[in-house]
Every structure is written in structure tokens, then in C-alpha cells.
């Protein structure tokens, strides 16, 4: 058995030991792990490749050389671990030993070649500190006890059964060995082997329509015929041909050029659907209405904000940078951006979510001259794991998605030192095909840096282009259109990316310092499209850039030029600077790689060179404005939904069931695994109160320690209403975001919003027969956004759309419901005026304040009872706005003791949450509750009368612009006078008895739910690990 022993003192010095190339495999096992009796034991594995001292057996190597001692010190903790070592192919004696310990199977997991291996990179760096120069790969070993469920399996079946539990087939190799096997093939070092890259090729566009489409598909360009024809037309231009010939370029584009155009024109970068000309048909009324929309974005998103800008002097940079920027005070500005990473998270949830959060961090870092990320938000839409869900070979198990995404966001936020302050998890089976993973980040940046605006870019002619951070590999090349056929042994995995939060944290620290020293004139991140997008975009500032491919640092050799240009390898920022030498010196101190890769000019083109000769020369005007506008059609017909409801007697049970539902129950197990307090600025945390279980409506924290003002962050999302009318869904989302922010104390006149659309494909096609309807839903969502933004005076400062959230394997098509996430950011002048939602004192009066009508459509209650109602919630936008402004004033006067928004589960659940949060109780009058429930109800009660008068309607119906507020009894008169003309109903009071008691007019108890029962129901665990 090759096991290392304690190092002897007379080890041989390295000078006298010869070395030879080799590979060593190391296992680090917790001490006494075999005595634990566990059925499965897991431990760390490493493969070390390099010049190894030649001293006989591996045991001697470990015990007798400085090399061995260094490896032992770095890889194991002698207090709690022991280290095993062998040549990878000679591990049969390990098997023998494990067999004696009662294990029948040994499995080893290792990353596929080229997959980001953060642990291995750190081990290499640590070993370098000990002057050991080797290349490292990391992995995991698993031992399965003989006779146990897994240990009884055949190796092949364990490989199948262990998928997603022990390994992910896209990123990992996984091999199982029998411990009694005479001969078995162990994994060795996962080196990347690539053939010599081909020089740039010319791609002829001298093709007919079919040929152009075939080319687009074959090269995964994702361009349609019109777009391909536009490119062909461009290159047919005679003058261009002369210019190209003079620079030694062919008439037709090189593969580098074609790929750059495809990236720049991609839906992801260009937002073609939001820019499209849409012929919209509205069939709501008996006669059809038809009108043309020239760009949803310009009409409904940009215009309202631009119109509001006259009144909002605080908007410093909207829609133009990587995030929206708002003034905070004279010296500082705050910015905010939310991104989605849905497709990557569907493929590999951990890497997808991790790169999602790290990517949006870079958006903030790449805003203006660089902003420091100060908070993260995360909102997930998942299918709740159950047997009901569709199960297709290409779909990951639902729980695998949940756990991977959650862990990815945890590592991304925690390891970067950015608090995850706000979030939401929404479950609906319709997210089975694509989970939605929204990652948001806010940042802080100085308004001026060395006498220049910090929220603008100041790139000038002659500035050097610098790439800093990670190296370029095949990561994320054509990631969205990933095809598994191209995978072979030794080929790096290109579609899947795993982030490296540690490298990015170093980059982050460096950039803030470089910014403050005035070394940065412009900065942007490398996300979708890699350098082609980052340099191509920045080139617009000076009207030209030259990108030199020769010095770009690569992870491994063998990348062709076009791959280098479009690779989406993570953790890279592109900077423009006038002082490269100084920047590089600083980078070295921060252990960050910084490389000069070209310069900015004013020639009107984006030039890409290799050895000083162009391999691409693209006209900037054509590149950025040459993409033809899409022409689309939409058609809105209100959906036909059949009504269905009944009656319920046991309201106690209904409340407890609601509290335990996945869309309502406590998020504590997720929240606690996110560091939501790092940076030390939190004021209102996700969970507050004496038992740290009061679920707060929004986050409040201090962006600047020395200032009293607090920043408020909240979100709103109600895709449950999309199937009734996307207009109502959008109103609901905006109102919810604003309402949540106001609940904790945000001044409504300071609120700014972000929109994130995640849509099923809204372009009609054979596989997508209701595309026109989905586009009409998009139109209605945009109309609603515009209406409510004008009414509330809350501008949109940034946003993003993701328009292809469908899973389609040729048999089954699974589309997400149209989903709009609205994120809000506001200001509270004195952070210590902020409110939490838990009840505060016995005797406080409980009011319902509202400016909208309740309904059952899309509610948790209806879903629980499997009821359907077409009555949709209403809102008086003007009234709601005034109500929020007035409420804010009273809060700042100190009149309000708690405020909680009514959302999923209605008033009863909201009251229940305030009780859970405080450990106090509430006594409520049913008649008052019913009176409040009828406020703003539809005038045409008719067939709905029975429903509206039901007790359950008062308890569980949901609707916008509705709040539960507690006020001290001594303020009763003043409070009620203040709200004359509004719907403000006294429904009961806070009591010592720990229960929610709803009393009927005759003194009976309609509901009496105890605190203990409610806490138990609410703490029903979600299916996360």
C-alpha cells in the first residue's frame, strides 16, 4: 500500500534528486473516515502533472523530498486528514485497501478537459509559493460500502444512477471501479489536446437564399435570411471591395468577421424583437383594432423614462451603459442592473447561476469608469419537483436545477463579498423547460473621478485597449446553440462555463484602485460575444478600434482567431487607458493579469489583426446599425377560461395549508446560506424581528457608512396573472415592487425601476403556432409598463430581455409563462426610520389601506383549491400613487409601527406573517375585513356576488396596492382623518395572545390559528439541500 508516512528529518535535498515528467494522483481523506459507518464516503482527489523527483516509490517521494513535504502541507491538514499518493494508473493497491475496509466500489470524478477548475488553480498557486511547479487537476473520490444500495450496483449502472448526484455529464468525467477488479482503467490527467488551429478562412456568401440559411445554421450564427442577405449585400459593395483588397482582405468576409457580425446582431446583444416593427391586432372589442408599433422599446420603455427625466434630475445615465445610474449625493452615484442566465442554468445549474451573478457583477464594475458592487439580488422561477412534471431525456431533474442554482448564487455572492439582500422564489410547473434565474447587482461609483464624470466613459483616440482578469478558452463559444455531437475525448467543453469568483474578486479590488488613481478612461465587461462585443462597443466612443490577437492570454493553445474574438470566457474586463505601464504595475500588485491588446482610433472601423495584418475589418456603421429591422405580427384575443369555484368551511386549515405552500412558506433555508450582511451596511435584512423570522418586504442598507440615508431594494413578479392578461401581470409586478419598497420606508418620489422580460418565443412558426398571441402578450405588458410608469412617476433606468425561453426536443415543447420581473431601488432619507413588517406592541390598531380591488384569478388560494376565476384584480393607479406618497409622509413622522404588503395568500397570510415575525397575536373583525375586501371591487358584481361576499374572499383574495398597517391607538383620530377619501379600514388590533383570531359579528370565531401552528406550517422546508 502506498501511503505516505510522517516525513523523516533526513530527506534528500532537491539538488541531488533527478526529475522526470510524470503524473501523481493524491487522495486526501478525513481521518477515521472509514470508522464512520457511512454508506458513501467522499474525499478530495488531485492529479499533479509536471517534473517529479525520481526517488523510487510515491511513498518515498512524499516522505523524503521537499517536493513531497510541500505537497503534503498544501493539500492536507495533518490534524484532521491523511494523504494517499500513487501514480494514477497504479492505484490497485488503494482498491485492495478499500476492499478490506468493506467498500465494494470506488468512483472517481474529474472535470472534463478545459472546464474551469478553481480548486486546481488555487492549489497550483499555493504550490508555487512552496516552489513546486506542477499543473493540477482536482476531482472527487467516492467509496460505496459493500452491500449498501449503491454498493451492490454494477459499475455501469452506478454511472447511470449517479448522474447529477455525483457528477454532471456535461462538465465531469465519472468512472466506477470494483475494488476487487484485477484490472481497471483509472482516470489520468485531463489535458486539453487541440489540433493546430486553422488560419482565418474566407466564407463566401455567393449563395442563394437556401444556401445562406444553411450557412447560418451550419455555423450556428442564428441569423435569419434577411440578415444574411444584408451581410451579403454589404460585402458586394464595390467600394468596400477596393478598400479590403488594399488591406489584403478577400471580397467575402473572413470567419472572424462573420462571427463578429453574428454576435453583434444576436438577439442577446441587439434586442431585435424589442426593436421590431409590429403590426398589432386587438380583438378585445367586437371590431378589430389594428395599429403599428415601431419598436416596443422606444415606444413603451425609453419614451416614458425620457419624458420623466424633466422631473427627475437624479437620473445620470439611463439605457446607455452596462447599468442604469442614479445620483445618490454630490459625490456618489448608485447603479443597478439585473440579468438573466436561464439557458446556461438549464444546462448546468451551478455554473449557469454562478456565471450569471458574476456576470452581472461585471456589468456594474463596467459602468462608467467602474462601480463597486454593493448588493446582489436573486429571483428564481422554478418548477417545484414532483412526479407531475414532464420528464425528457434532455431535461435535468428539477431538484438538481434548484440546488445547483442556489449554490451558484451562494458562491458567486459570498465569495465576492457582495451581500445578497433581496430575492424571491416563484414556483410554477410551467418553468419545467427553462428555469428563470434573475441575478441583479447594484453598485456605488463616484460622480467625478479626476475631474471627469465617473458615470461616463472618456475613451480617447490613442488609448490602449487592455484586457484584465481571466484567460481565453473555448468557454461559451456559441454557448446558446450548444451541440453535443462535437464533443470528443480531450476536447474542451465549450458550452458550459463555471465562474471563478476568486479571480474576479481580485479583478474587482484592482479596478476600484485603478479607477481612483485615474488610470481608467473607459471600461466594459466581457459577457456575451466576448471581445467582439466589448471592444466592438467601446469602438463606438472614438469611432474605431484595432484589436491585436497576438498577445491575448490563452488558457491553452489551439484556439483559432474567431474563437479568441467571440469566446465568452469569464472574469475579464476590457479597459481603455492612457497609462498602460502604470496600470500593469498596479495589476501585478493585485495579482491580476493585464494585457495590452490594441488601441482606439477614429477610422470608422473595427479592425482585428494578427502579426500586424488584418484578419477582419468591419465598418462600424454597418456593424452597429446595419441589422435589418424585424417585421412581426401580434394578435390579442382575451383567453377563454372556464369559471369554477366552491365553498370551504375550515378556514384554519386553509390558512395553514396556504402558509406551507411553496410560493408562500419561509425562504429561511435559502436566505441563511447567502451572506446578506457582508459590507456591514444592512438596516432591514430579509429576516428580522426577535426570532429572526419576520420576512421583510424589501431590503434597506447604507451605501455610505457615514451617511444617514438608506438605499431600498425590492422586486415584483406575478407571472401567475399572465394567462389572464399580461397587462394586469405587468401592472401587478410594478405595483408590487413599488409597494414593497414603500413598505420599508422608501420615498416613492425617489424610486427607479428595472425591467427584465423573460418570454416564450413570440415569433410565429410551425413549432410555435401561437407566436402571435405571445407577442400580443408582450405588447400588452409594454403598454401596461408605460401606463404605470407615467402614473407612478417611477422611471425605468435599465433592463434586459430574454426572448427564447422554450425547451423543444422535437417532441415536446415547454414554454415559460410570459414573465416580467420589476426591480426597484429607492431612498429613505433616514435609514433609522425604516420599518419591519412584524407587529410591535399590543393594542396597536390594524388597518387595511388599499387603492385596488381584490380578485381570485391567479391567487394561491384558487390554485390550492384548484378553482378558476376570470375576475382579475383592479387598481386605481392615480389613487395608488397618492396613497404611497401620503403613507411615506406618515411613516417618516413615526406614525406607522409596522407595514406589510398583501400578496400571495391574501390578507390572512399577511396577518399571519406579521404574527410569525413578532410572536404577538391579532384580533380581527370579519365584518371590517369584508368591508375592506369590497373596496375597488368590480362594479358589475352580477355572477360574482356570491364569490365576493364569501368569507374566503375577504381572507385569501389577492390584489395590488393593498397594505396592512399598524398604528398606535393614541393616533387613531389623526390617522383616520388623514385618510378620508381613501380606502382605509380598521380591521382589528394587535393582542398578546399568540394567534390570529377572526371574529364574526355574533362573537363567534371564524378563524383561530395559533402562532405555533402557523410557524410550523410556514417553516415547511423547500426541496433544497
Amino acid at each position, binding site marked *: 500500500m502506498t501511503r505516505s508516512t510522517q516525513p523523516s528529518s533526513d530527506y534528500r535535498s532537491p539538488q541531488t534528486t533527478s526529475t522526470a515528467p510524470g503524473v501523481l494522483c493524491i487522495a486526501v481523506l478525513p*481521518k*477515521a473516515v472509514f470508522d464512520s459507518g457511512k454508506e458513501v464516503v467522499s474525499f478530495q482527489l488531485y492529479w499533479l502533472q509536471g517534473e517529479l523527483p525520481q526517488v523510487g516509490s510515491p511513498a518515498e517521494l512524499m516522505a523524503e523530498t521537499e517536493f513531497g513535504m510541500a505537497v503534503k502541507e*498544501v493539500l492536507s*491538514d495533518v*490534524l*484532521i486528514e491523511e494523504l494517499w499518493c500513487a501514480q494514477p494508473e497504479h492505484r490497485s493497491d488503494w482498491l485492495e485497501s478499500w476492499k478490506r475496509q468493506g467498500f465494494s466500489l470506488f468512483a472517481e470524478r474529474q472535470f472534463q478537459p478545459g472546464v474551469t477548475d*478553481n*480548486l486546481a488553480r*488555487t*492549489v497550483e*498557486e*499555493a504550490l508555487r*509559493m*512552496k516552489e513546486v511547479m506542477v499543473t493540477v487537476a482536482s476531482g472527487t473520490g467516492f467509496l460505496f460500502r459493500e452491500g449498501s444500495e449503491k454498493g451492490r450496483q454494477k459499475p455501469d449502472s452506478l454511472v447511470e444512477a449517479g448522474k447529477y448526484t455525483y457528477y454532471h455529464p456535461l462538465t465531469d468525467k465519472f468512472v466506477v471501479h470494483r475494488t476487487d477488479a484485477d484490472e481497471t482503467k483509472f482516470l489520468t490527467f485531463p489535458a486539453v489536446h487541440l489540433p493546430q488551429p486553422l488560419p482565418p478562412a474566407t466564407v463566401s456568401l455567393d449563395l442563394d437564399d437556401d444556401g445562406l440559411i444553411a450557412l447560418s445554421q451550419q455555423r450556428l450564427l442564428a441569423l435569419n435570411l434577411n440578415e444574411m442577405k444584408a451581410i451579403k449585400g454589404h460585402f458586394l459593395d464595390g467600394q468596400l471591395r477596393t478598400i479590403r483588397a488594399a488591406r489584403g482582405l478577400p471580397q467575402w468576409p473572413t470567419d472572424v468577421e462573420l462571427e463578429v457580425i453574428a454576435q453583434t446582431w444576436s438577439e442577446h446583444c441587439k434586442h431585435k424583437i424589442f426593436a421590431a416593427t409590429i403590426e398589432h391586432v386587438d380583438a378585445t372589442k367586437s371590431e378589430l383594432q389594428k395599429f403599428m408599433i415601431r419598436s416596443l422599446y422606444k415606444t413603451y420603455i425609453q419614451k416614458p423614462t425620457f419624458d420623466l427625466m424633466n422631473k427627475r434630475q437624479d437620473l445620470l445615465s439611463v439605457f446607455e451603459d452596462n447599468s442604469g445610474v442614479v445620483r445618490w449625493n454630490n459625490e456618489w452615484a448608485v447603479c443597478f442592473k439585473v440579468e438573466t442566465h436561464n439557458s446556461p442554468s438549464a444546462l448546468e445549474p451551478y455554473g449557469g447561476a454562478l456565471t450569471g451573478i458574476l456576470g452581472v457583477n461585471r456589468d456594474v464594475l463596467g459602468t462608467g469608469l467602474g462601480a463597486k458592487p454593493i448588493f446582489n439580488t436573486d429571483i428564481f422561477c422554478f418548477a417545484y419537483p414532483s412526479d407531475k412534471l414532464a420528464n425528457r431525456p434532455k431535461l435535468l431533474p428539477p431538484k438538481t436545477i434548484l440546488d445547483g442554482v442556489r449554490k451558484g448564487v*451562494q458562491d458567486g455572492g*459570498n*465569495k*465576492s*463579498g457582495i451581500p445578497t439582500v433581496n430575492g424571491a422564489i416563484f414556483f410554477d410547473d410551467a418553468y419545467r423547460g427553462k428555469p428563470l434565474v434573475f441575478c441583479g447587482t447594484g453598485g456605488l461609483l463616484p460622480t467625478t473621478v479626476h475631474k471627469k464624470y465617473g458615470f461616463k466613459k472618456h475613451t480617447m483616440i490613442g488609448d490602449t485597449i487592455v484586457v484584465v482578469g481571466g484567460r481565453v478558452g473555448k468557454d461559451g463559444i456559441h454557448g446558446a446553440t450548444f451541440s453535443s455531437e462535437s464533443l470528443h475525448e480531450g476536447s474542451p467543453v465549450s458550452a458550459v462555463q463555471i465562474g*471563478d*469568483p*476568486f479571480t474576479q*474578486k*481580485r479583478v474587482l*479590488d484592482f479596478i476600484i484602485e485603478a479607477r481612483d488613481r485615474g488610470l481608467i478612461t473607459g471600461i466594459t465587461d466581457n459577457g456575451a460575444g466576448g471581445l467582439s462585443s466589448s471592444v466592438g462597443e467601446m469602438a463606438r466612443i472614438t469611432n474605431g478600434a484595432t484589436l491585436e490577437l497576438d498577445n491575448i492570454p490563452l488558457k491553452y493553445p489551439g484556439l483559432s482567431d474567431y474563437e479568441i474574438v467571440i469566446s465568452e470566457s469569464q472574469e475579464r474586463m476590457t479597459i481603455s487607458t492612457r497609462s498602460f505601464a502604470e496600470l500593469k504595475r498596479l495589476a501585478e*500588485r*493585485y*495579482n491580476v493579469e493585464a494585457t495590452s491588446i490594441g488601441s482606439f482610433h477614429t477610422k470608422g472601423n473595427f479592425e482585428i489583426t494578427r502579426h500586424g495584418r488584418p484578419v477582419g475589418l468591419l465598418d462600424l456603421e454597418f456593424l452597429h446599425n446595419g441589422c435589418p429591422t424585424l417585421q412581426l405580427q401580434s394578435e390579442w384575443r382575451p383567453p377563454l377560461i372556464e369559471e369554477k369555484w366552491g365553498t370551504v368551511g375550515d378556514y384554519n386549515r386553509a390558512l395553514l395549508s396556504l402558509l406551507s405552500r411553496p410560493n408562500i412558506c419561509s425562504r429561511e433555508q435559502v*436566505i*441563511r*446560506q*447567502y*451572506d*446578506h*450582511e*457582508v*459590507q*456591514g*451596511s*444592512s*438596516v*432591514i435584512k430579509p*429576516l*428580522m*424581528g*426577535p*426570532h*429572526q423570522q419576520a420576512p421583510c418586504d424589501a431590503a434597506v442598507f447604507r451605501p455610505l*457608512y457615514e451617511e444617514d440615508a438608506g438605499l431600498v431594494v425590492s422586486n415584483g413578479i406575478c407571472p401567475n396573472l399572465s394567462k389572464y392578461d399580461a397587462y394586469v401581470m405587468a401592472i401587478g409586478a410594478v405595483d408590487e415592487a413599488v409597494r414593497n419598497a414603500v413598505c420599508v420606508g422608501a420615498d416613492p418620489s425617489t424610486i427607479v425601476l428595472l425591467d427584465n422580460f423573460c418570454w416564450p418565443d413570440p415569433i410565429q412558426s410551425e413549432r410555435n403556432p401561437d407566436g402571435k398571441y405571445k407577442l400580443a402578450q408582450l405588447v400588452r405588458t409594454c403598454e401596461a409598463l408605460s401606463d404605470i410608469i407615467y402614473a407612478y412617476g417611477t422611471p425605468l433606468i435599465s433592463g434586459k430581455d430574454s426572448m427564447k425561453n422554450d425547451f423543444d426536443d422535437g417532441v415536446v415543447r415547454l414554454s415559460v409563462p410570459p414573465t416580467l420581473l420589476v426591480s426597484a431601488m429607492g431612498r429613505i432619507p433616514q*435609514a*433609522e426610520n*425604516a*420599518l*419591519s413588517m*412584524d407587529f*410591535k*406592541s399590543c393594542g396597536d390598531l390594524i388597518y387595511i389601506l388599499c387603492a385596488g380591488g381584490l380578485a381570485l384569478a391567479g391567487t394561491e388560494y384558487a390554485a390550492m383549491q384548484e378553482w378558476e376565476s376570470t375576475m382579475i384584480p383592479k387598481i386605481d393607479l392615480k389613487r395608488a400613487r397618492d396613497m404611497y406618497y401620503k403613507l411615506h409622509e406618515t411613516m417618516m413622522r413615526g406614525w406607522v*409601527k409596522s407595514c406589510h404588503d398583501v400578496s400571495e395568500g391574501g390578507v390572512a397570510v399577511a396577518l399571519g406573517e406579521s404574527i410569525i415575525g413578532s*410572536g*404577538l397575536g391579532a384580533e380581527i373583525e370579519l365584518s371590517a375585513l369584508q368591508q375592506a375586501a369590497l373596496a375597488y371591487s368590480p362594479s358589475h358584481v352580477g355572477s360574482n356576488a356570491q364569490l365576493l361576499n364569501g368569507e374566503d374572499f375577504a381572507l385569501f383574495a389577492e390584489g395590488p396596492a393593498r397594505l396592512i398597517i399598524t398604528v398606535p391607538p393614541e393616533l387613531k383620530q389623526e390617522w383616520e382623518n388623514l385618510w378620508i377619501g381613501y380606502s382605509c379600514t380598521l380591521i382589528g388590533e394587535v393582542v398578546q395572545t399568540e394567534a390570529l383570531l377572526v371574529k364574526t359579528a355574533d362573537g363567534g370565531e371564524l378563524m383561530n390559528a395559533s402562532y405555533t401552528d402557523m410557524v410550523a406550517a410556514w417553516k415547511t422546508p423547500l426541496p433544497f439541500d
Partner: protein
Amino acid sequence: MIKPKAFVLCGDGINCDAETIWALNQAGFVPTRVHTSEILETPRKLMTAQLLALPGGFSFGDEIASGKVLALKLKEKLKDVLYDYIERGSLVLGICNGFQVLTQLGLLPNSKPSAPRTVSLTHNNSGKFINKWVELEISPFSSSTFFEGLTTIHLPVRHGEGRLVLDAEASPQTIEQVKKRAVLRYAEDINGSYDRIAALTNERGNVLGLMPHPEAFVRWSQHPAWTLSKFPTRSEKAGLKVTVSPAFGIPHGLSILMNAAKAVR
């Protein structure tokens, strides 16, 4: 009065440097942010400070083991200076990841150059990261200057590897020493830590490593139950009780740091 000087280490994945600087400033120090590269270039510069803070964070991404690689990095060039510094009586404060670095360096609970490493901080029993405010008991036998005047305190924990473990072959004397130098214990077991230990100090009491974050409780509005404090009429219930307003005293984290400042002033 001259304010004591503090160095706050940053870089390489440390991420609580900003709030640690702010908190030390509030406590009466003049803190300076020092990058790991800088301190390794000129280790003797450390001698100009009265307190060295190793803040929380994820140095080197917590890869291999938390605190391990930063400890390796500091060990070669800084450890000798650090012994002199500690010997002189200056303060070393390792918070969370900083505590992990101190145990990896073998400076706790015994910071003599000859002392072997006896404790490690490893994965919580649950296997999960946890961010939660906890109640902590201060050892009545504590000689540490950091906790003067305090008995029970509230601080947040934010860690995945906060379980203190002893060498399996630890002698009774070692065990005795660890227990004696455990200045803070969790009121309730939260991570499986040996003897509910949340913090360790050295023989002289001038090196402190703790998993909870004192820099995260320097004003009352950081406490999860602070919103109750605005309404003093509320009757007392079980759970974390807060008593806010100036009359309620100094936030516990700030107290700890102020004690440190007092000790080296």
C-alpha cells in the same frame, strides 16, 4: 490623545476590509488598508501598528481549506515579524476567515514560535454556510482585554467552516488549554464546534480569533431586532432581545473594538 494605528489586511479574496476599517475607526483607531502584497514586500512595517486585523472573507476562494492558502502565503515572509509583534504585546484580531488564517498559521491558542498547531476550523456539521445572529457567552475566566465589561453579547455569524476541531491525538493538557482560552462560546450549538467554542485567544490575550463578526455590530440598526427598540412599550418575549437607544449602551461589536483601542492606547 494619540489614536492607535491599525492595519487592515485586504486583497486575495478578503472581503470585509471596508467595514472593518469603518468599525475600527468608530472604535478610536486610525486604520489603514494594507494589501497582502504590500505587507509581504515590507513585513517590518507591521511594527508601526498597534493592531493587525485579518478581516473576514473568502481568501483564495476558501479553496483546499478556508484560510489555508493565505496562511501559506503569509507564513514564509511574515511569520517571524508576527511573532515579534505578538511578543511585543500588540494586538492581532482575526475575524471569521481571519480566525481561520490564524489557526492555519498555528498562532492560536498558543502563539509561541515553538508551539505546535493544535486546532483547525472546518466545515459546519450541517455542511452549510450560515448567516445568522447568535447569542454568545463570554468566558468568565477570560483574561482577554477585548471583552472587558461584557458578559452576553449578540453578533452575526457568517461562515461555512466554523466548526472548531482538535487534533484527534490531543493531550489532556492541550484540551485544557483550548478550553481555557475559549473566550466566546455559542449559547446554542450552531455548527458542531468543539465545546461550542466561537473564539480563541492566546496565552497573553493579545491575539484574538473569532468566528462571529464584531465589525458587523457597531450600530444598533445592524441588529435584526432593532426595529422593536423604537417602540419600548412592547412586552418582553423569548428570542433575541434588544435594548437600543443611547441608554441601552454600546453595540457589542463596537464594545469589543473599543476595548482593543483602550488596551493599546
